[in-house]
């Protein structure tokens, strides 16, 4: 990105989220902080339970409460703290300045409403459009997401669309009010590989037309490589590594990121290439009792005694590109070099 003066659009500071359960509170998100510039595409990667989806849902008041609750922090969006906004004001932000695309296009569209009715809804709420104008806009939006014969399909129900088309409809809804930020939560996970590529291509085209910032949440590092400017790796409710996508892929500093990279067959090279579909052993920690140190330490072959005892801060990785941050006590490049692995 070569923007002249990139203004901060979203500033997340020390966000924490917990879910109360019969067996104690589950700390799903713990002290997450990061910033997103206008027009930036951020890829957030992690396995399920890493807090990657929950923390964005919590920002906008979309987690079920109870049992969910925000335990602390602030989220500045265009200068206002979303967490402090009353529900009514937050509704103005949701679907207006921030659009959403959810994972499963089968279940994320209302089966009992026509596609037109579902696209028009945010137009009426946020832009005050109604009647003919709203319908015309809905048709334009279906055109925009490349659904052929849009006018004829407006009055159809979701079950009359294919999976890929439904996700296009979701994207049309997400973009309907020209948002400053589009949040895509596992938007292509439920789709076939070919449809997945089409949807990613579409989103990149639309980004060029509209210029919104994007948060792309996925468990698939491969998807991030194709779409993001910045990548952020989350684990057990924390950010383990974050930086420009090229730099993180070329020079990972967290053992977890390395493990994720090694599980991508087409990106593995050298000796690692022979260990195709490498799997990270072990299970994530019990989030009712988060470990005191580095949450990944118990699964990490490079962990030091300090990793188990003390939590590493997220800080600039020495010798890496500016803005490439890592939370680790161990020095991954040095350890890999000692093993004789060249990356």
């Amino acid at each position, binding site marked *: 990105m070569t923007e002249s003066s990139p203004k901060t659009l979203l500033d997340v500071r020390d966000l924490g989220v917990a879910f109360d359960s019969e067996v104690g509170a589950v700390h799903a998100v713990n002290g997450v902080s990061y910033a997103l510039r206008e027009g930036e595409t951020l890829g957030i990667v992690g396995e399920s339970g890493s807090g990657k989806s929950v923390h964005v849902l919590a920002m*906008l008041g*979309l987690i079920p409460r109870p049992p969910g609750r925000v335990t602390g922090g602030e989220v500045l969006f265009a200068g206002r703290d979303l967490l402090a906004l009353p529900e009514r004001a937050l509704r103005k932000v949701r679907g207006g300045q921030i659009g959403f695309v*959810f994972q499963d296009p089968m*279940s994320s569209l*209302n*089966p*009992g409403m026509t596609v037109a009715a579902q696209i028009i809804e945010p137009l009426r709420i946020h832009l005050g459009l109604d009647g003919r104008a709203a319908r015309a806009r809905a048709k334009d939006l279906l055109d925009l997401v490349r659904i052929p014969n849009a006018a004829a399909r407006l009055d159809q129900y979701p079950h009359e669309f294919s999976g890929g088309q439904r996700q296009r409809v979701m994207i049309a809804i997400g973009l309907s009010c020209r948002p400053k930020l589009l949040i895509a939560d596992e938007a292509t996970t439920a789709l076939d590989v070919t449809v997945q590529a089409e949807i990613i291509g579409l989103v990149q085209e639309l980004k060029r037309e509209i210029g919104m910032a994007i948060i792309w949440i996925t468990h698939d590092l491969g998807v991030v490589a194709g779409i993001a400017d910045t990548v952020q790796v989350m684990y057990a409710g924390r950010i383990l590594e974050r930086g420009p996508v090229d730099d993180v892929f070329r020079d990972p500093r967290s053992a977890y990121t390395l493990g994720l990279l090694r599980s991508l067959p087409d990106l593995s090279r050298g000796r690692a290439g022979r260990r195709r579909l490498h799997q990270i052993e072990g299970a994530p920690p019990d989030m009712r009792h988060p470990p005191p140190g580095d949450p990944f330490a118990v699964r990490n072959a490079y962990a030091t005694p300090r990793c188990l005892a003390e939590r590493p801060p997220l800080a600039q990785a020495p010798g890496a590109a500016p803005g490439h941050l890592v939370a680790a006590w161990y020095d991954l490049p040095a350890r890999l070099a000692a093993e004789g692995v060249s990356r």
Partner: protein
Amino acid sequence: MLRFLVQRLALAVPTLVIASMIIFTLQQLLPGDTATALSGEERDPEVIAFIRQKYHLDQPLPVRYALWAGGVLRGDLGESIRLQKPVLDLVVEKLPVTLELACLAMLVALVIGVPMGILSAVKRGTAADTLANGIALWGLSVPNFWLGILMILLFSVHLGWLPASGYVSPFESLSENLRSMAMPAFVLGNAIAAVMMRHTRAAMLGVLGSDYVRTARAKGVSPLRLVLRHALPNAAIPIITLGALEFGQLLSGAVLTEQVFSVPGFGKLMVDAVFNRDYATVQGVVICTATTYVLLNLAADLLAAFVNPKLRRA
């Protein structure tokens, strides 16, 4: 839609045929000579002979059933020994009264049960939810004939606001008709309201937790619109189909409610027939009740299909 209708009908017909066999076979339970037993209080040999001939009691059971079922299909439900009238005439006379009572009771159940269920689902885990569940448990547990007696004690005996009994036809005076039906309809609707509340709550909880409701919230939809436009129409399908099963409870309950408030309907006809050993009438009423119940369920299935866009277009 048409295929769906045909499918449902194809299921309903054998159900009713087998039900009629069961109902017909009931008379085999009668102790002693069937003809003598069927004649009830009468011991007139002429009547017994008439019955023996009428029911073809000299024939084997399957033949008797076939002859009887043929009659039923032609609208011949037999003769009421006691009233010397065709059973069909009695049924046609009494059925509208019970249907009015059942419809009013269903209205009470819907008006109380559905909003309460929505409220308790939306306010899950709050005091309002606990209260609504408590009321539902009360409604499920209180025997409706006792509730009827208590209401008569309060509203008729003590306050004198409503008549304790005495049915007035709506064609005579609609206001008097509603006054006489108010307590029976409430008593009968009470238990169904509790069931509807539970069904509505469960269906709404399911829908409110769905992905598309989250999508709607992500669009900035207001809570009221979320419930009424997004959640309720989708919850309506299970509410309708499960609610229709309660018609059975409604028809069962009507027997007791009619007894308590002396409403001259189906239930009263049946109980009077039972005590007068008027077995043809009992069988006729049961057949008609089963048919009504199956038809009401069929209607509810069609209504649910109409609400569901997937089936409406098919």
